[in-house]
């Protein structure tokens, strides 16, 4: 195959060994390559995963036994605030954006994102936002006093965030870091949409787009209409705190409920912003390991777009206990029930893809199967909480905490783990260890169910969320101890993953271009891909270009 001189020159530069480390650092800091930015996103998110996971373990130690004083009440408030904020804004979003950044251009046969410099800007501003949040530990009360982190909860309900109730700068750090992270998220989402619509290779029509790209498209569209309201609310909060305005100042006629609305207009679709990429990974992995094409591609796309639209109409089911009145309650109960329909369609499609397939139980696939089961359970408790009378009983209890952790950990984190095992060979050129992968899976699944299955019960018994400690006579002690033990199992599982990633990077088996015998374009290029992705711009004639390449006698394009 002939290559152009430019491509050859790039290959020779990349192949040079023993460059001075400063040059390498400089190269990473100034890079606009979507793959390097994607990896930086992922590494940055993993650092925050460890930090916020450590905070979770401190919370669980505090709650493990009744009347515990392992940390002070102030520190406890800071811990759950930082845990929630970090996990959503500085772990979940960057991780999913990172994987998307890495994969989308390769999967659609492009050489980079539509706006490479904007991409770098978005990453660095998000990274700065995360550092700003953690800088609050030093600068929270100003430089002259001992610092403190924000302690207003990740939802920062008004009027607690007003200057009188939260003096010092800790809340300002929270406010500004969320604002900046919002700017970064909107930049990346804009980039993803432009890339998918404008950078597709020849023949990649919208109905041949890999489902991962489709779901990221919907997810990015949601980012525009959900992160923006949060950004707007942060601007209002900043005006309140710095200029003395009265948006959320109840003393001057301002409304705390308005903040509730603004926050949850962001907060609920945010769940779908996080879960749609998880669906995207499962969409790619399940067919490959079932050795069948995805069942119901158009239904999958329609269901995703449907979820995108409906998810913007359900926010106030977080606010049933505020007292919305009968009309509001009915509407939000109804819309919450309706959103389970497209989600159900997806679950049936995945099952139908596996049905009759020759399933390979490799590590990515078992994580996907775990995802399917746990996401179903999470959806069922979601329907329970979506019924207003039930919610009046259990709103703000540990049942809610268990429900949304079932979604975030049981579904999203499981799918992300599956994605790690699936695409790691593409990124590094090495396979991850299957044995360690199975250890990771079982430790994590056992830990997950110990923690979050048992967390439902104290909620049903009346244990409120965000509680600092409790009396022994309540009977929550044993259950909370089990929950805490589960957290340790999960931590052990994650350590297996980290060890596996580091070890495989040096000692893993050579992966080759296409270790899973898969069908999408990223497996057509070398592992790791060269900085220009494809020496020749690919042309596709169906949704599974590599199937066509491997089976010229029976190409997919004949069935379109």
């Amino acid at each position, binding site marked *: *195959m002939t*290559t152009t001189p430019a491509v050859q020159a790039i*290959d020779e530069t*990349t*192949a040079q060994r023993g460059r001075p480390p400063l040059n390498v650092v400089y190269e990473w800091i100034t890079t606009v390559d979507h793959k390097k930015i994607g990896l930086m996103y992922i590494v940055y998110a993993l650092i925050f995963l460890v930090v916020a996971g450590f905070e979770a373990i401190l919370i669980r130690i505090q709650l493990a036994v009744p009347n515990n004083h392992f940390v002070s009440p102030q520190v406890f408030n800071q811990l759950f605030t930082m845990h929630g904020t970090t996990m959503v804004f500085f772990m979940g979003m960057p991780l999913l954006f990172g994987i998307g950044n890495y994969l989308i251009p390769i999967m659609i046969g492009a050489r980079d994102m*539509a*706006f490479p410099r904007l991409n770098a800007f978005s990453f660095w501003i998000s990274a700065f936002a995360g550092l700003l949040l953690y800088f609050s530990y030093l600068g929270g009360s100003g430089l002259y006093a001992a610092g403190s982190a924000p302690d207003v909860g990740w939802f920062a309900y008004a009027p607690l965030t007003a200057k009188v109730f939260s003096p010092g700068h800790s809340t300002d750090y929270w406010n500004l870091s969320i604002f900046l992270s919002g700017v970064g998220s*909107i930049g990346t*989402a*804009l*980039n993803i*949409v*432009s890339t998918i*619509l*404008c*950078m*597709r290779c*020849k023949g990649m029509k919208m109905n041949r787009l890999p489902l991962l790209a489709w779901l990221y498209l919907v997810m*990015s*569209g949601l*980012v*525009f*209409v*959900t*992160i*923006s*309201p949060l950004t*707007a609310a942060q*601007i*209002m909060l900043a*005006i309140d705190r710095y*200029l*003395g*305005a*009265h*948006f959320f100042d109840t003393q*001057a*006629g*301002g409304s705390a409920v*308005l903040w509730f609305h*603004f926050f949850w207009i962001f907060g609920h679709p945010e769940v779908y912003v996080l879960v749609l990429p998880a669906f995207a990974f499962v969409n790619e992995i399940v067919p490959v390991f079932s050795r069948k094409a995805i069942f119901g591609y158009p239904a999958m796309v329609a269901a995703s777009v449907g979820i995108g639209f409906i998810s913007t109409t359900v926010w106030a089911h977080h606010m049933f206990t505020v007292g919305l009145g009968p009309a509001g309650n009915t509407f939000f109960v109804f819309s919450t029930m309706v959103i389970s329909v497209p989600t159900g369609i997806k679950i049936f499609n995945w099952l139908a893809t596996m049905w009759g397939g020759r399933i390979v139980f490799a590590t990515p696939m078992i994580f996907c199967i775990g995802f399917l089961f746990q996401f179903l359970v999470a959806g069922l408790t979601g329907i329970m909480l979506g019924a207003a009378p039930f919610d009046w009983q259990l709103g703000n209890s540990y049942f809610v905490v268990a429900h949304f952790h079932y979604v975030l950990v049981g579904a999203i984190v499981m799918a992300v783990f599956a994605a790690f095992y699936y695409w790691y060979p593409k990124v590094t050129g090495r396979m991850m260890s299957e044995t360690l992968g199975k250890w990771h899976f079982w430790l994590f699944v056992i830990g997950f169910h110990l923690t979050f299955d048992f967390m439902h019960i104290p909620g049903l018994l009346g244990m409120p969320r965000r509680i600092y400690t409790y009396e022994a006579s309540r009977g929550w002690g044993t259950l909370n101890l089990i929950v805490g033990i589960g957290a340790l199992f999960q931590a052990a599982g994650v350590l297996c993953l980290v060890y596996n990633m580091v070890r495989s990077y040096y000692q893993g088996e050579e992966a080759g*271009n*296409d270790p899973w015998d898969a069908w999408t*374009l990223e497996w*057509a*290029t*070398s592992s790791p891909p*060269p900085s220009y992705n*494809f*020496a*020749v711009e*690919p*042309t*596709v*004639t169906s949704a599974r*270009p*590599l199937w066509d*390449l491997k089976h*010229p006698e029976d190409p997919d*394009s004949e069935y379109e």
Partner: protein
Amino acid sequence: MSTASSIPFSAPLETTPWKLPYRGTVGMACLIVAESAIFLIFVVAYIYYIGKSLSGPTPAQVLEVPIFGTICLLSSSITIHFAEAALRKSNLRVFTTYLAGTVLLGLIFLMSTAQEWYRLIFEKGLTVRTNLFGTTYYSLVGLHASHVIVGLIMLSLVLIFSLAGRVTEEHSQKVETIALYWHFVDAVWVVVFLTVYVFGR
């Protein structure tokens, strides 16, 4: 290091030519959707707090309708449209003239807002701290004014390049992207105007 070894085969190209939308237009459209959501939240807050101020002054007492500024801003949408059309036809002199007109009209609008704020702050004593009306008014109008400033910076850059003779017909798509933003800023003013000066009074 081997280059991509198994690039998909070059299948027979389909008869229809492969044409994709311009990334600048798509990117700007996305930005506009995101910005609209931000404005929507501010407009909702404004409408929600109409008549809820615990103390005066009220909008009816102090607000004057900025007719002249509004006419200038809305006309700038027309001038930039003519500028785009001229650039597409490589009519560079006309393009520069209309662009300069757009920048001027935008500046006049900004001046009229500044004048109004000066009057409200120093004569009527209305600040962002005074009451809910002050809070929501300065935030919403200020948010819009900040967008006008950003638009003016972008347009002025194009004007400087254009005066230096660096803008040609091949840049017309890029100029259209900026023009799209400017149209958005104008359209938002219609909403802000109706909210603040028509229904809010």
